[in-house]
């Protein structure tokens, strides 16, 4: 019975994926991709990975979709989509990709037995960390170095985006996110949703220690609320040279690195926490990270500076 639902889900996903690739218009392709992201988040629920489902819905579908849609709006005047390769080349590419797909399917159908798992290793020391959400424990305790490097990648990515601004505009505001003529509905939602959204974002961060949720999911919801206000034209994007903004970008990674270094004399080494203070330290780092993630995601969607800085 339940497999029928799964089969239906797979059919929906494959339809979205094929549409993403074959749609003639790039905007259609982006919309199909956003739909695919939401469908995939349902699949993550089916795979019992609630934390991943939240992230996929917020970042994979939402934030990525917004970036792609903005790009579509900028590219729209250019009608030419470029010419597709000839039929023979298409068939050759199709065969190659089918081969790759079949090889991957074979890997899935012939799994290693017993299935490799690090779950017992995660469970073994959960008590010492004092958190109940195993994914948060892995992200911020066992594999904290991965998470730290990922934050650094986010900051570097933002610097990369900013660096694409023409010299004249360096430090100015990014191109406005404001819709050409914000509809009444958008303005209304931008006034009503943020208080609720901010509450949900804070809840996800706070709750992430023991239940599904965490810094990424909460941070993305906060970023979404910020972007919503910008899109309705109720607020302006800050100048990229603003010191307060740059401090917010840096506070999460900086605190994480500071805590990591403190591990040298408070515990066993870089990024290790003294067991009795593990939980408060992790929650403090999560709060700072969520703030930074919210600001970084929002600024990445906004793009490089496109206006001269005001003197």
């Amino acid at each position, binding site marked *: 019975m*339940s497999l029928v639902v799964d089969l239906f889900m*797979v059919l929906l996903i494959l339809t979205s*994926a094929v549409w*993403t*690739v074959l749609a003639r218009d*790039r905007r259609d392709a982006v919309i199909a*991709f956003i739909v695919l992201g939401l469908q*995939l988040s349902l*699949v*993550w629920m089916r*795979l*019992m*990975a609630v934390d*991943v489902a939240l*992230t*996929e819905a917020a*970042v*994979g579908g939402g*934030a*990525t979709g917004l*970036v*792609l849609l903005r*790009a579509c709006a*900028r*590219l729209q005047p*250019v009608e030419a*989509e*470029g010419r*597709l390769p000839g039929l023979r080349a*298409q068939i050759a*590419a199709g065969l*190659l*990709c*089918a081969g790759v*797909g079949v090889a*991957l*399917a074979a890997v899935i*159908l012939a*799994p290693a037995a017993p*299935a490799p*798992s*690090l*779950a*017992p290793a995660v*469970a073994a020391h959960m008590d010492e960390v004092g958190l109940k959400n*195993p*994914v948060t424990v*892995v*992200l911020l305790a066992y*594999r904290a170095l991965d998470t730290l490097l*990922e934050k650094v990648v*986010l900051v570097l*990515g*933002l610097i*990369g985006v900013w660096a*694409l601004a023409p010299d004249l505009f360096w430090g*100015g505001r990014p191109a406005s996110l404001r819709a050409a003529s914000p509809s009444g509905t958008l303005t209304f939602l931008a006034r009503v949703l943020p208080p609720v959204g901010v509450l949900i974002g804070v809840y996800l961060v706070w709750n992430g220690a023991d239940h599904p949720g965490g810094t*990424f999911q909460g941070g993305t919801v906060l970023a979404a609320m910020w972007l919503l206000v910008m899109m309705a034209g109720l607020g302006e994007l800050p100048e990229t040279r603003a010191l307060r903004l740059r401090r917010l970008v840096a506070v999460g990674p900086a605190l994480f690195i500071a805590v990591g270094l403190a591990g040298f004399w408070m515990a066993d080494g870089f990024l290790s926490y003294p067991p009795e203070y593990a939980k408060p330290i992790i929650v403090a780092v999560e709060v700072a990270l969520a703030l930074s993630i919210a600001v970084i995601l929002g600024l*990445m969607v906004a793009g490089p500076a496109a*206006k001269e800085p005001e003197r």
Partner: protein
Amino acid sequence: MTPATLYGLCAAALVAIGLFGLILHPTPLRKVISFNLIGSGTFLFFGIAARRGAAAGFLGDPVPQAMVITGIVVAFAATALAVALLLRMLEAGAPTVDGPPEQPDDLSP
């Protein structure tokens, strides 16, 4: 067949479809979208590994799940950077396969 296996086959198909789009489309934005499809399929493989590795009272192995969360965020950062790059390319009037360079629309202060 378990749901995990079924979604595993779905992941294989996603990677194949994404790869096809990456080869097929000459325009950079469509290539970025297709590349994201490949990424989604790859992440789903991690989900299958996590579900199959359910043990010690967890419904899934948390390590691959945590890696996917990190991966999704990094994929977003890479996409945002790629999109910013291709828009800048267009603005600068670089010859792209997207067609003739357009006039920058919101450069006016």
